């Protein structure tokens, strides 16, 4: 018993010692700029959490190896402290608190998903810590008047906007009939608001407006309605499970719809699970490697994709690309601020106007990136059943022609 007590007090003494020494561990140590990030390494967002982390790491290595960040005539290198938020918003907020008040981090990178970014933003705002995030697209993040939040990605309400506009254009400028099904989370509901706006502006009519539960694995009811009411466009947003469920059941129930637009539908994933059934689906994406943006660190999207694949052995999803871009934004802001003062860095971030391999970056008042349109790609398969994402809209970057309307199941 006594020995236990002695051990326990020893451990707590060491813990106290460590925690006090950590406090002195501030944002810039020696030649290192320390950034903090809570990332979902476990839990339901873990696969995208890892994509995010890989994106961050890739950019840190690249910037450090190409001369680092120059502030006040001295060269600094980036370093990131990661914690695992377990895909849990409460945990993410705690970790942000810990990063800032215990680890002394003064610059943050965002977590994965809108929900977690929403949990962290009030904390960084409270401490006046600038946060550049790359994976929270929910519109509500940008309407709260946050001053220290910057997002390199386009807000969620623009995700499928371009799909509706394309459908209207193909319909000779006349409004279309839209069926939509959205999961009930912050992100998908924002995508929905975007569709409502687009429908209003184009004079389109929403004939089915379903909400999907978080535990979604069956959307037969929605599809039966689609079969009966024959809309011109079917829009689905419910993360990967929404996309997979939709494709499976559309194929099984042979639902014919001229245009199917979705979020979170990476061709590699869809076709791995569904083969040619996923063909013709339109997917909203923040980025595609074939886009022609350039920067001096990664060169072009194609080059980024090749380097990424070499290092991590898979094709980079847009979540990784946008995460890498967040580091480029930070570097640029530090150099322009020429200081590590949080306020000055924040002002420099707000004045960002640059091009990265991921796209142009310029922040609006609310912190969202307004200089980078969404792209829409279509899953296209060749005879051997190998499927690829091809950019079809906006036309400026299109690498293939949009196939519209989708051929009927009886003709495939």
């Amino acid at each position: 018993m006594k020995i236990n007590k002695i051990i326990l007090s020893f451990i707590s003494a060491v813990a106290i010692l460590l925690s006090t020494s950590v406090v002195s561990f501030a944002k810039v140590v020696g030649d290192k700029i320390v950034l903090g990030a809570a990332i979902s390494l476990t839990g339901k967002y873990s696969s995208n959490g890892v994509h995010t982390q890989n994106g961050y790491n890739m950019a840190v290595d690249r910037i450090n190896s190409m001369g680092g960040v120059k502030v006040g005539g001295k060269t600094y290198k980036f370093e990131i402290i990661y914690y695992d938020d377990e895909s849990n918003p409460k945990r993410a907020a705690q970790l942000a608190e810990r990063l800032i008040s215990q680890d002394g981090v003064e610059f943050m990178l965002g977590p994965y998903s809108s929900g977690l970014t929403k949990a962290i933003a009030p904390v960084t705002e409270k401490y006046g810590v600038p946060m550049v995030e790359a994976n929270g697209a929910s519109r509500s993040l940008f309407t709260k008047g946050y001053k220290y939040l910057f997002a390199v990605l386009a807000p969620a309400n623009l995700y499928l906007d371009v799909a509706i506009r394309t459908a209207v254009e193909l319909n000779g400028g006349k409004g279309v009939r839209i069926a939509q099904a959205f999961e009930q989370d912050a992100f998908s509901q924002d995508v929905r608001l975007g569709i409502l706006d687009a429908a209003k502006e184009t004079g389109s009519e929403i004939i089915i407006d379903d909400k999907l539960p978080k535990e979604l694995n069956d959307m037969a009811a929605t599809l039966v309605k689609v079969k009966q009411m024959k809309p011109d466009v079917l829009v689905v947003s419910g993360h990967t499970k929404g996309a997979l469920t939709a494709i499976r059941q559309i194929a099984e129930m042979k639902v014919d719809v001229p245009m199917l637009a979705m979020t979170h539908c990476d061709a590699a994933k869809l076709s791995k699970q569904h083969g040619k059934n996923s063909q013709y689906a339109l997917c909203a994406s923040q980025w595609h490697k074939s886009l022609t943006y350039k920067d001096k660190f990664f060169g072009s999207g194609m080059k980024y994709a090749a380097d990424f694949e070499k290092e991590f052995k898979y094709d980079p999803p847009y979540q990784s690309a946008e995460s890498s871009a967040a580091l480029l934004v930070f570097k640029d802001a530090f150099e322009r601020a020429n200081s590590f003062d949080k306020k000055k860095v924040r002002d420099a971030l707000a004045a960002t106007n640059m091009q990265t391999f991921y796209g142009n970056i310029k922040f609006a008042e609310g912190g969202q990136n307004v200089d980078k349109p969404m792209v829409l790609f279509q899953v296209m398969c060749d005879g051997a059943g190998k499927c690829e994402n091809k950019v079809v809209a906006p036309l400026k970057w299109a690498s293939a022609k949009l196939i519209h309307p989708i051929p009927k199941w009886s003709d495939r």
Partner: protein
Amino acid sequence: MDFMVFQYPMITIQACLDGILLGVLFALIAYGMALQWGVMNIINIAQGDLVILGGYIAYFMYLYGIHPAWGVIVSPIIMYFVGVGIYKLVINKVVDRDLFISILATFGISILFMQLMNFAFGADVVLANSGYGTTFLFDSNVVLPNSKIFSAVVSIVFAICLVVYMKKSKLGRAIRATAQNARAAKILGVDTEKVYAATFGINAALCGVAGALISITFTIHPYMGLPYTIRSFMIVIVAGLGNLPGVAMSGMGLGVFEEFADYILGTEFRIGSVFLLLVLILVYRRFKLSRKREYLK
């Protein structure tokens, strides 16, 4: 509220058929739960997670080029041993305690399973394609994916086999004897420890079958287990323990109820409506019980 489901007879038929096919699958999971609840007095919160684990077995077979339908055979065999393992490690320590302890213990197992599956298989949503095609009825106004029909048929076959096994085999009789009175069974020479292990194993095996079917018909994900636990709990509550036809009927009833709730209230209230129904049924039972008591006075 949308009453479209009643306005078009074809949609009504579609909803009923979808519901029945789905309900049969629920009933299979619920049957496993009723079995071990009756025998061991344990409410297994990890039921849904066992289902998902069974689904992953079929999924991995599919990934390695084996048709996922074989999962219906392989998955229960593996899951039987998983079930016996869980029993030996955890459940045998809580089997004689009160219900609350067992709920806590199985809740713990559920969390552990979710995290382990997430760790081992990743957080991606997956599914196994059967390539079974589709059946069209009524001038193709009603569509039934053959995978759903397959899963209902397999569920029924397994349920029948189990009923026969329970009636005819030695172990089945021992299980039933233990369910009636564990102490008496022990006195008469039944090794209740073995019976408990076998019961838990059989339950896990049933979950394995159901999981394989779910991976063929729907999607699986490490965190998708809980709704299946709740549905089977609900079915058992409605049907009562040891009432097999009741389990089948209430399973199908629940399936149809869910489909209609889906059309009328919207998909977002699908699981919510199951909860609501559960509360209503519990209140109704309480009400009936209190009336009975008054009568006895």
